[in-house]
């Protein structure tokens, strides 16, 4: 895949938390036994964050995860090159052998997509280890697979026939905080086709 990215559809999501909990069980199986699995977000050990917001007085929910920026502030901020772009996919990946836990990447991310692991004191973010394995084997990340509302997709933005590309063409989409210049790959659908 040349430019894989996530898609999340605000017009379909019902905040059922299937994706949040699936990410947790698939990628961080050991964590729920602990009292405070994700103290930084006061959340479960999951790469997906849920924001209850109001858009013009209308309640909405916003789910975020690593935006897979093509101009990622976290990659620039990393002093050891532990955060880097995967040469094949361009996905922002972490080499934990190089990471020293300085948290610059956690601070740098304008999407708050990284969270400090309370055991290893190193950053976690989407894609988790199980999802990385799934993608390598032609499957989709767990959050995409479990969604009952057809609110998620994952695929190659550079392939015009991929399901994600077709969906982008047919929908009204935005990318979050594009004005920052981060070139986030992930797509948010505002209105489906």
């Amino acid at each position, binding site marked *: 895949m040349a430019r894989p990215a996530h898609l999340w559809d605000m017009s379909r999501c019902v905040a059922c938390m299937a994706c949040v909990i699936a990410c947790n069980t698939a990628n961080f199986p050991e964590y729920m036994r602990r009292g405070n699995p994700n103290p930084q977000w006061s959340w479960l050990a999951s790469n997906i964050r849920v924001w209850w917001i109001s858009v013009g007085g209308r309640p909405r929910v916003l789910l975020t995860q690593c935006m897979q920026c093509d101009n990622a502030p976290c990659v620039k901020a990393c002093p050891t090159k532990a955060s880097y772009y995967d040469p094949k996919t361009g996905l922002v990946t972490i080499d934990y052998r190089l990471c020293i836990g300085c948290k610059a990447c956690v*601070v740098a991310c304008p999407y708050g997509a990284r969270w400090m692991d309370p055991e290893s004191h190193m950053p976690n973010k989407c894609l988790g280890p199980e999802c990385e394995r799934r993608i390598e084997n032609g499957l989709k990340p767990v959050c995409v697979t479990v969604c009952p509302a057809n609110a998620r997709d994952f695929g190659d933005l550079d392939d015009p026939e991929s399901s994600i590309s077709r969906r982008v063409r047919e929908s009204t989409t935005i990318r979050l905080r594009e004005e920052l210049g981060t070139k986030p790959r992930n797509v948010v659908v505002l209105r489906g086709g």
Partner: protein
Amino acid sequence: MRGLLLATLLIALVIGFAIALYGYMVKEVHVIPWGLVVVGYTFFALVATGSSIVNSLFTVFHYRGPDGILEKVIKYGVWFSLASIVPAWILILLDLAKPLEGFFRITFSLALESRIYWMAVLYALFGIFLALELIYMIRSEVSERLKSLKILELILASLVLLVTVLVHSNLGQVYGTMISVPGWFGAHLAPLFIASAVLIGASGQAIYISLYKWRDAMVKSATTILYSWVYVLVTLLYTFLLGWVIITSWYSMAWISWSEIVRGAFALEFWVVEVLVGVVVVLALAIYAIARRSFTAMILASIAVFLAGFASKYSLIIYHQLITLSPSSFPMRSNYTPGSDEILMLVGAVIVYIALLLVGTLILPLEYGEKPRRLWIFR
């Protein structure tokens, strides 16, 4: 007597390390990534580099100060700067997950786009150059040849100054390049940190030197004038810079956090500690100290600068992380109190700092004209 004191200080040094290490071992994840430990690190880095700029007045610009005080106490000044960088290094390494690997993994990564990469490089250079400068100063008391190499002295001093200025402007921009924290983002933290560093560094140096030499009337009166003038001039500069930062933030996203500092949840701390104490009281005391040659007033001003300086770094680093923007471009708020793990690391580092500072003062030949007697550089 001196031996007993030395032994006690060495024990204190070890205890300090142990406390800090314990804090590291019980480290927790907090709601913001950079908390009290990073504040402490930044503070001491600014003490070290700021006091180094004060030293440069003499070492680079040959300004000897009232009664030639700067020339007389320069070795104390340089030692103070060198010792002050140690707690900064301790704190920043303990803030990492892998302290022992930290420095090497960073320096050899060549991650040139990372501010923190450059921090490691610049700290290394700072430490090296400052140590070289101190050794040069000590050795030139016994080596005429060294003493005569004025050009070497000037080059070394200039390198220290250059690296110093780069360190705290880069340090400012470690925060200033974070688009994720609107309250930080911009080019303003570089000059702000330089000004803040000079203030905090000078005040630390003043307390150290003046208290150590409290019996020396000349030192007292000269430092009164010197440091008070530094406080007056640089406080005005700092206030000027910060004022424009706040005014400019009205029309940017930075206002979401600055508004809390200027008139919201954190306003009490800001106006009372940073403005009333840090600006008004400091100016008053400093001017009074100059006018009435009051050593007490200068010391009080120094304490005020030191504490308000810590508070200003705490508020700058912590509060803007607490109130930032969520991905939906709405403000998000968190609450933070320093954890016991962080307090332990800070307390340990401070104990190490004071002990080290005093140990160096006891065993290094820092007096004006004093010659090294033992082991090449020791008294």
